[in-house]
């Protein structure tokens, strides 16, 4: 169906969309972190479930976000050629079309690049198997 239409949206900066602010006052290191609802103010996600407008990010958070973007870009990408067993991107529930840009996670689950990058900025886990992407990545890319 209509999934093959390319939408002119998100690149890696899709983290700039969505999510609202929190009262912040009670946000401590205690689990679980507060959860937010959506509003349409550009927000960063310094950690899963925490969002703040760019102006309110601490330097440490900016570094973490930059690192996260760097890590995401290390993950292999490819163009869907129809040869894979996985035929559907579980994030948008759309079937892959030949020519779609896809990203491979270390667990070998694949997603539309646009779909998974948006998620990875929030949580560095595979949506399908919940495998943390971090550990696998670090062992591959760090010396």
């Amino acid at each position: 169906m209509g999934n093959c239409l390319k939408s002119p949206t998100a690149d890696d900066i899709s983290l700039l969309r969505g999510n609202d602010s929190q009262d912040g006052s009670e946000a401590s290191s205690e689990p679980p972190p507060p959860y937010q609802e959506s509003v349409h103010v550009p927000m960063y996600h310094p950690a899963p479930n925490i969002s703040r407008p760019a102006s309110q990010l601490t330097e440490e958070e900016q570094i973490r976000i930059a690192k996260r973007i760097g890590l995401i870009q290390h993950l292999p990408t490819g163009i869907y050629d129809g040869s894979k067993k996985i035929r559907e991107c579980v994030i948008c529930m759309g079937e892959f079309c030949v020519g779609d840009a896809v990203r491979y996670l270390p667990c070998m689950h694949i997603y539309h690049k646009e779909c998974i990058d948006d998620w990875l900025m929030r949580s560095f886990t595979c949506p399908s198997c919940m495998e943390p992407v971090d550990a696998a990545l670090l062992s591959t890319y760090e010396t």
Partner: protein
Amino acid sequence: MAMEKRLQKELQALVNDPPVGIKVDADQIGQNLSEWLVNVDGAPGSIYNGEKFQLQFKFGSRYPFESPQVVFVGPNIPVHPHVYSNGHICLSILTDDWSPALSVQSVCLSVVSMLSSCKEKKRPPDNAIYVKTCSKNPKKTRWWYHGKQCYHSEYKTSLLGMSSMGINT
């Protein structure tokens, strides 16, 4: 937009091929698909067998990257240690453990399975305080998932407060 496209697919799948005991009323769903009512049956063999419940789903524009808001509504709110009498549900996949691979169907099935594993009908221990003080949106509650127990953090805070005042709990 992405959210509507995905919800359209989910709706189609649920209407065409609904799992046993789960039924969505497509006619009640508005144009933009942002609010659903799903009828859920208590599972046969569980203590909720024969009971009928209704779940309300509200989707934000960031769905599926953000979890939907899910509460029990209607005349029959299940009496369960993780379900408050106002319909709020303490279930980690609805907040911290949400994944975009989850769906309306998988959330409904998780809720049914949560109900099915219950052996005794009772409300959460902090029901009275919670219902009085909580936000309308359960996602605004800071839930604590402690094994089988669940508390919202205000309750926890009040417990901590009491012990810091020298009151043993």
